[in-house]
């Protein structure tokens, strides 16, 4: 198991998020950038406070969207990487 899989993911403090209608938007208050999430992204964002481990998120997505674990893993990993890369998410500690 890689180190990242045992670390808790957290929303960055300088990010405000809003759900409007059924869509999520993330506001990076430091860099003044708004990021709109697709439905899956919005769902992942919404469960991160509760499911902080990537493995937990993958499991939850596979279950909720009734998709196989491999597809869920690909979707979740690429989304989390993007959010980590743009400073919207971080690892705890």
């Amino acid at each position: 198991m890689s180190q990242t899989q045992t670390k808790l993911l957290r929303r960055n403090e300088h990010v405000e998020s809003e759900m409007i209608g059924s869509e999520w938007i993330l506001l990076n208050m430091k860099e003044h950038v708004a990021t709109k999430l697709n439905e899956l992204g919005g769902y992942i964002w919404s469960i991160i406070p509760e499911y902080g481990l990537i493995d937990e998120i993958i499991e939850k997505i596979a279950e909720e969207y009734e998709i196989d674990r491999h597809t869920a893993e690909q979707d979740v990993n690429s989304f989390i990487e993007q959010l980590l890369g743009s400073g919207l998410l971080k690892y705890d500690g």
Partner: protein
Amino acid sequence: MFVATAIVGKSRISFKTQSERMAEFVKRRFRISNIQHQEPQADLYVRIQDGYGKPFDEGPVHISASDHSVTFQRCDYHMVSSRDYSSAEIHIYDEFALKHALINLYSSWLIHGARGLLIHSSCVIHEGKAWMFAGQSGAGKSTVAELSRPRPILSDEATFLYIEENGRVTVYDSPFRSEMENPCELEEAKLYGIHYIIQSPDVERISITPLDGFALMLDKVFYWRHDAKETRNMIALCKKVVQQVPSYQLYFQKNDTFWERIS
């Protein structure tokens, strides 16, 4: 000493100044309820002194806060307000500086109390309904207002949105004007739509989602970030507005045919 109370939406601003030039500016731009020597009851108290600084040089506003006050500093003005933005002492260079300082103060006061927003846009009344036209500098906000005459113009630069207790979004006549100095013949109207305008060879009006409207609105608000709590208030107010009022993208030619698409 010039002492006057101006009515802006549902609020009253008390002005005091010894400068004749600034008194003239206030009388021209604001709805003055009465001119008297006693300081009347008001929501905001503003003292103005001229003779400060130099002409605006495109430089930024620096904002700093202490426990008791907030200081707004630009090359053409220096303003110190109370933490709730309800009273301020403004030292200014000219009328342009005063307008900017007042926009800054009034916007901060609105957001602090979750009352409403000032938004970079023009707003026009058509058949009793208020319609807003927002865009970046040069997008054509004041052009749209100009092309809409003789319809009543509530704003040509900074639209004053007020969120009523029942959630209704009302546009009040804005004293923060660019070219069209005179107050509007009507004091307010309910907001029916927000247009983000784009000059184009075609005329088209496209409905956008509240979320897309929200994303477009955020950087049109007259607000200079200086306090995380105030920023969250501003975001919450934008959200309320886009949930109440439909947003559109409006492609327009430089004539008034876009009104055929608005209803």
